[in-house]
């Protein structure tokens, strides 16, 4: 008799797990990081900061860029993009965009 009750309990518990699976599968599709919808949601929360480094001598501009990158990296910012600014045919400097890194505890 005891064995019968134990078997019944086992069947009931196992069947209840199928129930929870059904509830889970009937829920809405999760937002995945690979989707465009996720990127759209993320974009406003990305913390970006753009600076202009004015220097017409390319060699000095490179030094200035390295120094700015070091300075921002110490504050937890990483380089997102570097765009040279050319007026007419003259190099005038760089637009540098930094992005705030995650802080993981």
């Amino acid at each position, binding site marked *: 008799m005891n064995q019968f009750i*134990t078997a019944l*309990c*086992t069947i009931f*518990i*196992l069947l209840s*797990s199928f129930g*929870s*699976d059904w509830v*889970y599968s009937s829920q809405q599709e*999760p*937002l*995945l*990081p*690979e*989707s*465009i919808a*996720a*990127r759209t*949601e*993320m974009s406003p*929360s*990305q913390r970006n900061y753009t600076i202009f480094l004015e220097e017409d001598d390319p060699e000095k501009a490179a030094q200035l860029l390295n120094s700015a990158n070091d300075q921002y990296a110490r504050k937890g910012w990483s380089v997102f993009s570097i765009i040279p600014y050319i007026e007419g045919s003259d190099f005038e400097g760089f637009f540098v965009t930094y*992005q705030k*890194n*995650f*802080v*993981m505890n």
Partner: protein
Amino acid sequence: MPKKSVLLFNLILFLTLSGCSAPKQFVAEIATIPSGAMVAIDGAPVETTPFSHSFDFTTVEEYTINATREGFFEEKLTVDSESPSLLAGQITIKLEPSPLWEATTFSPTTNNWIQVLVSDDISPRMSWQIMIDAVIKRSSAIKALNYEAGYLETKYYYKKFNTKHGEFLLRCQLVATLVSSEPLIYRIKNVSEWSGNGTQWHPYNRVLLMNESMTTEIQNRLRKRY
């Protein structure tokens, strides 16, 4: 003579105008790198790449092409009647592999409880030890452990991914609870979540390889007959 001139003028006008008017229909082959991506045009699923598709610009100014393939970032492309790729008859979309997908695997325990019926010849104490062994072998980060309550919870294991679409965080945590002591049944779940900003978390549909191997070992050893 004037009649001939009019006819000639009309002929030139017709040829000029017919030459100037842009074609309204294009057939292009849509391909992705790698192939096998599901393509939706203006939100409606069409086919798996590669395939040929006819674009009609009689009433529509532009089309939005979305390409999705498991393990890759979804890409979107908008084409109009002047798009060079469309004029060349070949639209190729390069898909970027997802490092999150590569670092994870499918598991039925992903954000879902599964029940493990412990073999009759394994004592409750032994089954508990098996679970702890499987966990601490891979990670010593246990958050909660209570034999009396039959509750085991690991700390979240975090992994960071830098992609061209930004930084992503993935975190996984294993939770095991006692369901019944007679018969001895445990239930196990791997909580798997991702975030794009470190504050808002969304469920992810795969788990880290470490969590999956942990779960598989627990299931195999608890079900095994000695």
